[in-house]
């Protein structure tokens, strides 16, 4: 893989130039300017290695899986299932604990639907105030249907979760606790293991929304002590249309399927059906085969680069970005100003200028950022903000990109001066 260590020239952020080379889209010109892609929380760009893996599959191995005895189908099945093993190893899980879904949203809907079947009136579901809509709306629906109660762990003034309050909110009626490991708005990294222990003390299950954490941090489900983990391929260099639900085997075995159809059954008669074993019990219909292979290629790419290196790189960029952004008058960071427990996601407001206008003027400089509520309307109303502008970074971003952002923001202020 393209990675050159330049020990002699020990600059603050080394070895990024070769990484950039792996992502063809970064050479694109937008409005005549080189693309500065800072919307990685929404989706990430894809390295050549991922694009090649998918092209190779379509050009040489394409067939449906689990169906044919012919060579091609066998090869496709092998590639698809090997991808599952690569992803299992990546997060410290077993093969049969990895369910392929369309993404985090589908993974969380699967859980709400399947775990929801066992809920009783009066049971409590605990979420946090910083959740993405996909970790709120499915639970609201189940709560309405099953007459359950939804509770939210509040934020502290430092944009972290209030653990003292969490300990009070989570009680013997709590059956499910579902929280994000990293906020897609604030960048806050939550203490999952502590929450897992609080939840397990009352026999509740702990679900982790890993959409923002799995791409950026080393995540091991054993160390987290979580029961379920949901994440999306497209936020970690992989393709869209593929995501993962990890679940502890014991729990998955006792759960009802989510979707019904081909592949997920063992036997079907005109009146009845029995379910396939794990993980296929939860994978109805033809899966996203090339996408699973693309995701496995993305995982290997990240492993080759090193998750620890990503953390290190993003920490340096975070320190740099927080310092640079703080020099802009009228800019307020909505998130922790401290480096501990936060990722490279920067939500901010600019006095007197709406986030749409900020994004539009930055776009003229080739800078892609996101404006709005970031699929977290409850959080926005809790913070009493109509929206924020958000810049979110990944392994291919550099200090130069942060500089471009800062220069761009000064131009925005000039337009409105």
């Amino acid at each position, binding site marked *: 893989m393209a990675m050159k260590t330049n020990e002699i020239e020990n600059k603050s952020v080394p070895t990024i130039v070769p990484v950039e080379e792996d992502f063809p889209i970064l050479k694109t010109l937008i409005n005549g300017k080189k693309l500065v892609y800072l919307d990685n929380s929404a989706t990430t760009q894809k390295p050549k290695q991922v694009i090649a893996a998918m092209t190779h599959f379509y050009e040489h191995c394409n067939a449906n899986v689990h169906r044919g005895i012919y060579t091609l189908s066998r090869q496709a099945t092998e590639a698809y299932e090997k991808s599952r093993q690569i992803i299992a190893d990546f997060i410290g899980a077993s093969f049969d604990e990895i369910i392929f879904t369309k993404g985090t949203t589908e993974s969380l809907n699967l859980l709400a639907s399947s775990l929801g079947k066992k809920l009783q009136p009066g049971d409590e579901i605990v979420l946090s105030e910083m959740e993405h809509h996909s970790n709120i709306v499915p639970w609201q629906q189940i709560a309405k249907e099953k007459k359950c109660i939804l509770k939210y762990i509040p934020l502290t003034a430092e944009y972290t979760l209030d653990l003292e309050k969490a300990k009070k909110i989570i009680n013997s009626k709590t059956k499910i606790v579902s929280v994000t490991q990293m906020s897609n708005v604030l960048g806050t990294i939550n203490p999952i293991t502590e929450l897992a222990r609080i939840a397990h003390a009352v026999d509740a299950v702990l679900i982790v929304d890993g959409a923002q954490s799995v791409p950026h941090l080393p995540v091991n489900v054993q160390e987290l002590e979580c029961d379920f983990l949901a994440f999306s391929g497209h936020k970690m260099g992989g393709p869209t249309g593929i995501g993962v639900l990890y679940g502890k085997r014991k729990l998955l075995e006792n759960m009802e399927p989510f979707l019904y159809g081909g592949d997920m059954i063992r036997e079907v008669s005109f009146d009845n059906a029995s379910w396939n074993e794990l993980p296929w019990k939860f994978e109805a219909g033809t899966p996203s085969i090339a996408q699973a292979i693309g995701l496995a290629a993305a995982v290997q790419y990240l492993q080759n680069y090193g998750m620890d290196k990503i953390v290190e790189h993003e920490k340096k960029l975070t320190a740099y970005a927080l310092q640079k952004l703080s020099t802009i008058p009228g800019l307020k960071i909505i998130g922790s100003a401290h480096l501990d427990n936060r990722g490279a996601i920067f939500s901010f407001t600019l006095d*007197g200028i709406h986030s749409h206008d900020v994004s539009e003027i930055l776009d003229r400089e080739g800078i892609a950022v996101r404006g709005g509520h970031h699929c977290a309307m409850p959080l926005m109303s809790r913070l009493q903000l109509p929206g924020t502008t958000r810049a979110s970074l990944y392994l291919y971003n550099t200090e130069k990109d942060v500089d471009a952002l800062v220069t761009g923001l000064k131009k925005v202020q000039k337009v409105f001066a």
Partner: protein
Amino acid sequence: MAEKRNEELIAESAAVINHPEITAAALTEQEEIYKENIIDHYKYPRNKKELSQYTCSRTESNPLCGDKISIYLAVDAGKITEISFQGHGCAISQASASMLTEHSKGMSLSSVASFTEKDVQSLLGIPLSPIRMKCAILSLKTIHKALEELK
């Protein structure tokens, strides 16, 4: 040789993807949306207040970007005698509310009811992408809903 073929294929598939000119050059003068008068209406909005007395009011929002606009209408003898707005949003949505309320004061209900997207666009005098069009017509939509309530 193989490279060339690949490029041809990409050119063919581009027709399917139908992407706009993403590598286009920087904006021309005609394409500028943050014109002086837009910024002026945004920073110093006209009629931005709640009317002390109004015949009807209506609030609408744009869920995509969180823009929110309330319109207050005072009506007499089939005419809009007073009109104002409140709310928050981007420069385009605010400027359009400011201009539209200024424009429709004193007009008959039927002529305001027949305003179209095009009218708003010519009032603003700037080109609008489909997403920005939604911001621009939020105030018009809100006025139309308010007028419907009057019926």
